[in-house]
C-alpha cells in the first residue's frame, strides 16, 4: 500500500510540476502548483511528517497560492498567454532535467547513505518539533518571527503607490 501511494503521489507530483512549467496560462500554472504542493504534502504524510504535511497545506496551498492567484488577477496577465516559450530555453531546460536526473539517479544509490535502509519508527511528531523549536532552536525561531515582521512592513511600503 505504501509503495502504491508513493508511486501514485510521485507521478502526480512530477506531472503537475511539468504542467507548471509548460502551461501558457498563469492561472493554470498556479493551479498545477497547488496540485504539486498537495502531492508533496501527501508524501510528507507518507514519510510520517504529519505536522509538516499540515503546515505545507496551510502555508503553501493556502496562503502562498492565494497570493499568487491574487497577483495573477491583479496584473491581468492574459496578454502574456500568447507569448511562446523560448525553444532555446526549453532545450536548455530539458537538457538540465536529463543531466541532473541522470546524475542523481547514479549518484544517490552509490552514496555512503544507507539509501536502501528501512524507515525509522515514528516518534511523536508535532511534540518533538515543538520541543526543538522552543528549545534548541529558540533563537532562529525568534529571528524568523522578526523576518516575517520585516517582510510585512516591507511589503506594505513596496505596494504603497507613493512612498
Amino acid at each position, binding site marked *: 500500500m505504501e509503495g502504491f501511494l508513493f508511486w501514485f503521489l510521485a507521478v502526480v507530483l512530477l506531472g503537475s510540476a511539468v504542467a507548471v*512549467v509548460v502551461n501558457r496560462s*498563469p492561472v493554470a500554472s498556479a493551479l498545477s502548483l497547488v496540485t504539486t504542493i498537495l502531492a508533496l504534502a501527501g508524501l*510528507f504524510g507518507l*514519510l510520517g511528517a504529519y505536522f509538516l504535511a499540515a503546515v505545507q497545506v496551510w502555508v503553501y496551498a493556502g496562503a502562498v497560492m492565494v497570493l499568487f492567484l491574487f497577483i495573477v488577477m491583479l496584473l491581468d496577465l492574459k496578454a502574456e498567454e500568447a507569448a511562446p516559450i523560448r525553444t532555446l*530555453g526549453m532545450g536548455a531546460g530539458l537538457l538540465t532535467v536529463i543531466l541532473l536526473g541522470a546524475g542523481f539517479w547514479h549518484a*544517490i544509490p552509490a552514496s555512503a547513505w544507507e539509501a536502501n535502509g528501512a524507515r525509522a519508527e515514528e*516518534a511523536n511528531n508535532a511534540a518533538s518539533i515543538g520541543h526543538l523549536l522552543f528549545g534548541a532552536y529558540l533563537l*532562529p525561531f525568534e529571528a524568523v518571527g522578526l523576518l516575517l515582521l520585516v517582510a510585512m512592513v516591507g511589503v506594505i511600503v513596496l505596494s504603497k503607490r507613493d512612498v
Partner: protein
Amino acid sequence: MGTPTLGHYLVLSGLLFAIGLAGVIARRDLLIMYMCLEIMLNAANLSLVAFSRFTQQVRGEVFVFFVITVAAVEVAVGLALLVSLYRMKRTTKAEEITALKF
C-alpha cells in the same frame, strides 16, 4: 512496488528540483519563474524530510519548517516587487526589464 526507500525519495526530489530549474531557465514570465523557484524549494524540503525520517532526526523537519517560513516571506516580498515593477514598466517579462543591463 515494495516499500519506498530513501533513494526513491532522493531521486524524486532531484527530478522535482530539475523540473523547477528547467522552468526558471525556459520561462520568461517573472511570475512563472517564481512558481518554479517554489518548486525547487519544495524539492529541497522533500529531501530534508526524507533524510530526517530515515535517519531518525527530527532536526531535519525543523529546518523544513524554517524553509517554509522563509519561502512564504520570499513570495510576499517578491510579489510586492513584481506589482510595483508592473506599475512602472507594464510588463512582467524578464527580458523586457533591462534597466540594469550593461
